[in-house]
């Protein structure tokens, strides 16, 4: 056998997907250990900070609902601002989950197994943050919460089906439900495993209820695998559809800077870009403190860095095309937005922040060193998230503040409520995430065990070698 192995130069051999000699027992123990440990001081401290921030969020929500959108900095012409920026930003972040779970599963990318649970949870929590804003940003949320749904009201008033905001309602709710189901389905074997290994009765009952009577029989596995694959198939189009529809909120308008045909692919790429960045941002510290380095290896981080580089390039292409189309069209309003307002207007600093973070920063991932260094990866991914937030700022605010008729041009300045909502959702997101880490295995234990078996059957060789046999 050894003679058939292809001799690869060492630098081309990727790091292993699972480090060390692992078996089911060691994996079970190391991956579920965090759940059974009493809360550590660090976790508690972060949790309390998160709770406090969540308090800030709910205060900001309360004041917005009680007093009105006037508490935000929005005005006429800038009718949308932080609310919609945050919505698009969080939805974009929520994209990595589906992509990792569904598309990479269908493409049989083995490196997804250690990070999919993580990414899916992050998706769910991000979509929850995103879901707050479409309701909150309306003037009368108590009506918006149900008038946007097509229900047969007694006076036969239907929503406007031509409006992209209407489609958003469907896109986002579908995405949330599918993501939730997908995540939960993947959880079932692990919940059963937790049930079986729990030492307290209360935990056994709780996990038992959520495990839905999973016994790990071959029949169970058979059905489970089919359902999981089907759901993955169902979720795959959503990766494209959700952010396409979100991009239509802008692209279907007539506003220069919004009315752009390249928006759907560019938004989807941007979403994946920011989603991976967020997974990376959370995963790098988590794998260290939760001692998961043996299953979330440099290999995983490197793969994610490559995806970020790729999607970053697509996003860059989107930027180039926007500018090209504005120039090529000869449309004065378009030209004004892309060549005056954004690079030279009062918000030029936001434009250059976006360009630096989204275009310049990811280029470092061309080097292996940067792809394998946790510090460059972490700082890079944080910057990408900042850059993606500013991208939405430029699309939403910068386009609106100077449009067709110069007399109505005006500046937008966020208020403390705007910042509280952004900060608050980050804290709320973090809090949910901490709860998730504490109560549910952060890595899909059953899938990693399965992968471990696959790799062992390959003689413990790397997958490059295994693939050539």
């Amino acid at each position, binding site marked *: 056998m050894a003679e058939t192995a292809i001799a690869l130069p060492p630098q081309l051999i990727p790091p292993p997907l699972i480090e060390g000699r692992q078996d089911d027992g060691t994996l079970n123990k190391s991956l579920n250990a965090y759940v059974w440990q009493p809360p550590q001081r660090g976790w508690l401290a972060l949790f309390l900070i998160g709770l406090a921030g969540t308090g800030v969020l709910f205060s900001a929500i309360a004041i917005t609902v009680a007093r*009105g959108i006037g508490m935000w900095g929005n005005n006429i012409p800038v009718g*949308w601002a932080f609310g919609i920026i945050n919505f698009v930003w969080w939805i974009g972040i929520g994209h990595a989950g589906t992509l990792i779970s569904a598309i990479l599963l269908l493409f049989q990318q083995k490196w997804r197994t250690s990070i999919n649970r993580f990414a899916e949870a992050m998706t769910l929590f991000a979509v929850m943050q995103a879901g707050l804003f479409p309701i909150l940003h309306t003037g009368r949320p108590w009506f918006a919460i149900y008038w946007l749904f097509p229900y047969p009201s007694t006076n036969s008033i239907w929503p406007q089906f031509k409006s*992209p905001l209407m489609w958003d309602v469907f896109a986002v709710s579908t995405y949330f439900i599918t993501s939730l189901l997908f995540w939960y389905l993947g959880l079932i074997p692990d919940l059963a495993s937790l049930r079986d290994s729990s030492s307290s009765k209360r935990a056994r009952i709780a996990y038992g209820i959520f495990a839905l009577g999973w016994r790990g029989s071959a029949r169970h596995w058979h059905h489970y695998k089919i359902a999981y694959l089907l759901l993955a198939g169902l979720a795959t189009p959503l990766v494209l559809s959700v952010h396409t529809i979100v991009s239509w909120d802008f692209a279907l308008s007539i506003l220069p800077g919004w009315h752009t045909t390249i928006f759907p692919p560019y938004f989807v790429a941007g979403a994946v870009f920011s989603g991976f960045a967020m997974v990376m941002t959370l995963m790098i510290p988590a794998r260290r403190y939760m001692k998961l380095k043996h299953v979330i290896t440099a290999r995983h981080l490197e793969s994610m860095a490559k995806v970020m580089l790729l999607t970053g390039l697509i996003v860059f292409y989107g930027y180039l095309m926007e500018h090209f189309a504005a120039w090529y069209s000869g449309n004065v309003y378009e030209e004004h937005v892309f060549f005056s307002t954004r690079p030279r207007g009062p918000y030029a600093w936001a434009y250059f922040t976006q360009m630096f973070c989204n275009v310049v920063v990811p280029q470092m991932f061309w080097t292996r060193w940067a792809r394998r260094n946790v510090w460059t990866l972490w700082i890079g991914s944080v910057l990408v998230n900042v850059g993606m937030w500013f991208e939405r700022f430029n699309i939403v605010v910068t386009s609106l503040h100077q449009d067709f008729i110069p*007399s109505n041009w*005006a500046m937008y300045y966020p208020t403390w409520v705007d910042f509280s909502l952004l900060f608050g959702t980050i804290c709320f997101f973090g809090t949910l995430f901490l709860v998730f880490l504490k109560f549910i295995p952060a890595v899909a234990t059953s899938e990693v065990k399965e992968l471990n078996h696959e790799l062992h059957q390959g003689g413990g060789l790397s997958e490059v070698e295994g693939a050539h046999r």
Partner: protein
Amino acid sequence: MPSLKSFPIAGQRQKLWRGLDEHGAPPAPSRELGAAPPPDDATSRRSVLQLLGASAALASLGGCLKPPDEKILPYTRQPPEVTPGNPLHYATAAVIDGRATGLLVTANEGRPTKIEGNPDHPSSRGAVGPLEQAELLRLYDPQRLGVVQHLGQPSAWRDFLQATAEKARALRDSRGAGLRFLMEPGSSPLVGRLRQRLADTYPQAKFSSWSAIPLQQIHDGAQLAYGAAYEVRLDLSRARVVLSLDSDLLAALPGTLPAMRDWAEKRDPANGRLARLYAVETNLTVTGMNADHRLRLKPTHLHRFGLALLGRLAAQVPALSRYAPLQQRFPLPPESAKFADAVAKDLVAAGRGALVSVGPRQPPVLHAAAHAINAALGSACAAAARPVLHDTNAGPRTLEQLVEEMRGGKVDTLVITAWNPVYGAPADLNFSKALSQVPYSVYRSLYLDETADRATWVIPSLHPLESWGDARAHDGTVTFIQPLISPLYSGASEVETLAAFLGEGDRTAYTQLRAFWESERPDHFALNWEKWLADGFIGGTATPPETPAVRHDQILAAAMQVAPADSSAGIEINIVPDYRVWDGRFGNVSWLQELPDPVTKVTWENAALLAPDTARKLGLRQGDRVDLGLRGPPAHATVVIAPGHAEDTITASLGYGRRGAGEALCRGLGFDTSPLRHTDAPWFSPGLTVTPVGKRARLAQTQEHHSMEGRLIAATTTVEKLKETGEELAESRAPLLTAYPGPAYPGYRWGMAIDLSRCTGCSSCMVACVAENNIPMVGKEQVALSREMHWLRVDRYFIGDDTGNPGVVVQPLMCVHCEYAPCEYVCPVNATVHSDEGLNEMIYNRCVGTRYCSNNCPYKVRRFNFFSYTSDYTNTEKMAFNPDVTVRARGVMEKCTYCVQRIERARIETRLQDRRIRDGEVLTACQQACPSGAIVFGDLNDANAKVRRLHEDERRYDLLHELGTRPRTAYLARVTNPNPELA
């Protein structure tokens, strides 16, 4: 309980309006004409109506809350003219500085809700300015003084009468030696009679008038030119070349409305040859924005320019030949000289169509010079007529004499009916201190203001909509002021206050007015009285124009006494009346405070305006705080860079920096200019010191970007290029290329046309829109955040490369009612939809407030209720609401509806008559108020409609036509008529 009696005579026209008569006659058939009025009884039909109106308003506003505690009275017998829900219109007038503008006021169930111009009145011709409209809000102002005050303590009218009766006895004995009256400049014939009677009773009493914006220099100028006080009656309908020397005759200020209408006709290319306007001024004014050529001069150079012009005309007009020395005496710098040469030539060529108009701030010699020019050219546009005011001298000099008497202890009793002299008087007079030395002072005021603080007795004024009176219009026409509502608070009119000194304080103004006119015109009085009240004025009472001889020698002598221009480099102060608060008296009116200044677009305050170059020289930026000093304590102002302003001059408007205890709305806004005003120089003076204090302030400007960025937004062209422009604009009105068949509009197809050639930017339409559509005012902070709620805005753009003296074009912009409206398809809840007549409708109660419609509106004419802007309205303020228009809730989008409530009202009326709505039957509020007829609304399906003709005009274009929105509001390009010699 008083009996409910009918309203008097029915209207003579289909739009019903009539005088509200207080004398209680039975219904028409049994009416005894000429019957004496019943004893005055304040509780009458009106008070019942008011109670009913108020209770209806309260009931509707309070929703399902408990009924009001007050006893409410039902209509036991409904007066025949009153149909609940149908408004009535009454003719009355607004008087500002003694000149009346005829008004028609709409009343809904007894509460006045809208002030419009009286189409038959010579001072209005159907139009109305912002100040007159704002009277409505003063009526309902909860901060009005509601009770008589004696030494700061609440008192009663009866106590005042008693005190005054005692005082009067003593005064009669002294033949009125210490009695002085400081009056508002007035033209009221009734007050004239009272003054006569007071003078008879108290021979030593003296009357004087005071206004911060007096016409004194006009009268002095006429005195110089003709040897007697005259006023100038303008008739711009015959104008060909007009030179305005600081004369703001195109701003909707008291007395300018007819001139604006005439001028608009002269600027419509459809009416033949365009007239030409030259403006020479210091700060950019509304008139200057409309001038074909504009020269900006420091204030002290302005009248010298006028005299130099007179010198130039000497060579061309034989009648003026004696003025030739003036040309040498007042040499002009090259730019001014070129301007003066061209103007002189043009004026001579225009002959009878020439007019030189001089503003009231200018010195008498310039007025006299203008008289000389107009007379020599035989101008048909200016006629001299006797002044309509009782006192032709109402300026600071008169006040100075009074103050000297007050200081010298010669004044024992001072009755002040002038508006707030403590605030408005030049600082060097120290009127406030002098007033504290008067033992017995009576001040009549609507508010507890600066003067009220120091007066012994403060009598609350009755609002003009609560009281009877008369006044003369700008041309002398006798005009009546009628109440529409019984007084909301206790108070007295000027007539009643004066009558108190005749021992007749208990005779009401109505009794006095009727008795006066009965004695003046006894023939067929009862019949005439009804007609006068219904019309609002007595026809044919205009003072006739006269042709007095011009005393050229005196004028020349006076002109030669003017020193040649002092070219010292100092900075000058230039004080101007404010477009919104006038001299400050309208300070407590939020409609006006939030109305952007037509030129600077600043709201809620005044500012120190200066030219961009001057700002650069002084190192000042927009929003910097500076101290302005002139021979006294400094005024603390905020800098606004004003393109078009003269160099080395700072302009500040009157009426801000108020300190009155009772005027919370305007207290502390802007800065007071009185430290910069002096008795010898109330308007302008060199020697101003400008000291930056190193602080900055945030201004609430409704428009912050002043360039059109080369886009076709407010199109402007010249007479010569009119044809080419018409062809160029064809692209911007071409039918839309589309594969979809558009919707058909078989019934009415409402549309609007706005003629930029007529629009002067006076902004009267904005106030009309606010009043008609219950638009909330949001306050300075919200305006600074760009959240103003005006459905209609007037955009002002600077054009050309010269930031020092740019061209200006204005453009009213409200919802253009796109046929393919971008707002409609993006609303997720169908809250904005299209009607089958082409209106883009807003369904407030369906709106959830996503604001997507506003984002997608390329005109950004939608307005959002970011807060609940109306929830803090008091019940009194709510009475000003138009019951036909929903008051919008928080979180809801709103915008111009083309006054759909007016369309619906016309529809109801015409359906009953089984006919279509005729052209001109529906006037939108903005159209109705517009003094220059720039806004035309109507049915585009009607081939004869005026709006249809304008839509087919060669100057017509659609705003942002390339977006394919198909707006129903079309614009007509502005046409200017520049002089080729100055090009």
